[in-house]
């Protein structure tokens, strides 16, 4: 791996060395296009979630306004740009509010699984022995299992199926967490085992540094290299899992929060009657959100994998020369 371009030059200011920005700077051509498309879509998702109350014309569970009831399954019109659902909700509003649910679930799922997976991975890799063996076996068993089914079991356990907005979001997040923990566990454990043998860890042991400081100060800080990557990929997978749960009726009550998977489930019968607007819009919202996050994760993966890096020979000498300031901030 002699041709690894360093993630960022040490002399660059700190903000240029942040994972995503550094990746944008050293990408080029098609790869840069993919990365920037992904970042744009992700930014749109986050901004929509943030400004949902301003953007959405109605609330997610509103079936009437001052002018009277919305009516059910109304085609797109001036009052309801994307039409109304079989329950009389405004499709546009539910899609916009749905971004909030999606972002909340992603955030919660990632925080939980990072915390658990990293902690268990560090301890397991560092201690080794039978603790490690048992944990690896457990993680492998969970990892091999179809993730959606595991999430279903977890959501039954946590909420018995349906629940309130925050309860639903939390239970969806925890269900997804259980699926992801083995992945974080694996990566961090592997890194920990590698780092454990490094001289700086040995010397820390020799001078009598406490267990906690070796683990978090010396090993953890060096093992986080691959985290942003799994992180983006898991974010996209958690949207899909949330939608899958919702589609099977194990998501969040429609009156507590808007959720795209649930809306798609309700549109199953609409589609048979030729009503397209209740299915297309939430579906496209899922696709674009997942696409954005996946493009970011994919590009970062390719940029970090020397075998897949698309830079051709001879151009390696000037890694970030083509990056103009506009592109960096994009």
């Amino acid at each position, binding site marked *: 791996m002699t041709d690894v371009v360093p993630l960022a030059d040490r002399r660059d200011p700190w903000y240029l060395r942040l994972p995503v920005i550094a990746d944008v700077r050293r990408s080029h051509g098609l790869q840069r296009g993919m990365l920037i498309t992904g970042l744009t879509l992700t930014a749109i998702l986050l901004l929509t979630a943030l400004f949902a109350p301003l953007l959405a014309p109605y609330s997610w569970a509103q079936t009437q306004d001052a002018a009277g009831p919305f009516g059910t399954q109304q085609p797109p019109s001036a009052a309801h740009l994307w039409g109304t659902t079989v329950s009389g909700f405004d499709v546009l509003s539910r899609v916009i509010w749905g971004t909030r649910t999606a972002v909340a679930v992603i955030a919660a799922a990632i925080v939980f699984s990072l915390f658990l997976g990293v902690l268990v991975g560090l301890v397991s890799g560092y201690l080794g022995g039978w603790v490690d063996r048992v944990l690896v076996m457990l993680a492998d068993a*969970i990892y091999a299992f179809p993730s959606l089914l595991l999430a279903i079991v977890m959501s039954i356990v946590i909420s018995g199926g349906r629940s309130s907005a925050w309860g639903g979001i939390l239970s969806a997040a925890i269900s997804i967490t259980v699926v992801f923990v083995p992945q974080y566990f694996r990566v961090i454990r592997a890194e920990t085992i590698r780092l454990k043998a490094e001289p700086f860890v040995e010397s820390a042991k020799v001078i009598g540094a406490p267990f906690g400081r070796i683990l978090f100060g010396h090993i953890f800080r060096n093992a986080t290299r691959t985290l942003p990557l799994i992180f983006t990929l898991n974010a*996209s*997978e958690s949207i899909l899992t949330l939608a899958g749960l919702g589609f*099977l009726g194990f998501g969040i009550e429609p009156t507590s929060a808007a959720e795209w998977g649930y809306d798609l489930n309700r549109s199953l019968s609409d589609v048979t009657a030729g009503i397209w607007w209740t299915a297309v819009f939430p579906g496209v919202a*899922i696709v674009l959100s997942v696409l954005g996050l*996946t493009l970011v994760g994919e590009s970062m993966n390719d940029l970090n994998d020397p075998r897949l890096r698309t830079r051709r020979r001879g151009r390696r000498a000037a890694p970030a020369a083509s990056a103009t300031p506009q592109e960096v901030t994009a």
Partner: protein
Amino acid sequence: MSDALAPADLAGEPVPPPDPSQDAVVPGIAPAARRGGSLGRYIGVRFLLIFPTIFILVTTVFFLMRLTGDPITAAMGGRLPPDQLAERVHAAGYDRPLIVQYIDYLSKVVRGDFGNTFTDNRPVINVLAHYGSATAELVIYSLIVALAIGVPLGMVAAHRRDRWPDAVLRVFAILGYATPVFFIGLMLKLVFSIYLGILPVSGRVSTAGEVMMGTITNPSPFYLLDALRLGNPALIADVLSHAILPAIALGLLTGGVFLRLVRTNLIGTLERQYVESARSRGVGETRLVRTHALRPALIPVITVMGMQIAMSLGGAVLTETTFEWKGLGFQLAQYMASRDYVAVQGIVMMIAVIVAVTNFLVDVVAALIDPRVRY
């Protein structure tokens, strides 16, 4: 590089979906297998490891499901007076200590008894046999679609690397991953069944076909086989036309995975020296890709294919619900909706067994093809 990450490098891209071929040499297994060395011993060790995997999954699922309380209260709570409820809970033995119930359940599972479904009181094992074959049929069709899409397109993408076909195909593969299988299903239905009206909306066979299928004396698990046996062209067309949309919906998802995998691995093998030397001998580019580079690049695809069978059981739940394909997944969703947790637990357990056995077979096949796997 630690041993946990090394196999991923052999197999290609580690993410996403997380490269299952890592499982071939999972850290927990490697030391035992390494001591062996011979193929027979490797297979033996790998076979014995099925049991702890199943045991862990069965135990985890059992205790998780019991955390919610007993299945009877879950299904009937609120609909029966408390004393009647307590009576039924007692009769079914759900008021015993959890550990006793667990040992009882384990001993039944060992004998192949997964309990009876609560809603329609059928042995879970019968439900599994009946609907499992429908799911198997769907998964086989979708794998055919996935291979037909993934392998040739992956070859094109690798061959035309970094040019427009590659760009288009990579975006296609990512879209295949990003689109939930039920949304693809809904769109396919909308276009082909509603607007064009050329394919059926849902189900495995039309009502008239169902009647005709009823005449067969010993039906096989697969509708297509039965239709072929009856030799009625209209029936065969009927069965096939019902399978097209679900197979495409599920196959696109898997096909995207195959495409990426073939592409990455083919790029890897195309840079090998033996390919270079073949090129210098004047072997044509197409032939280089098709024969020289493809075969070694397909090894990880075979591994992933096995894993995909296990994984598409998750996707099958969604596909079957979308198309009312009466398989295991459709049935699982039905049981979940009626809160029949005995049935849910039974189906989940069964899938755990299928997954564990599939993983074992995949590892054996991988070891037979590539001696490096077993070290």
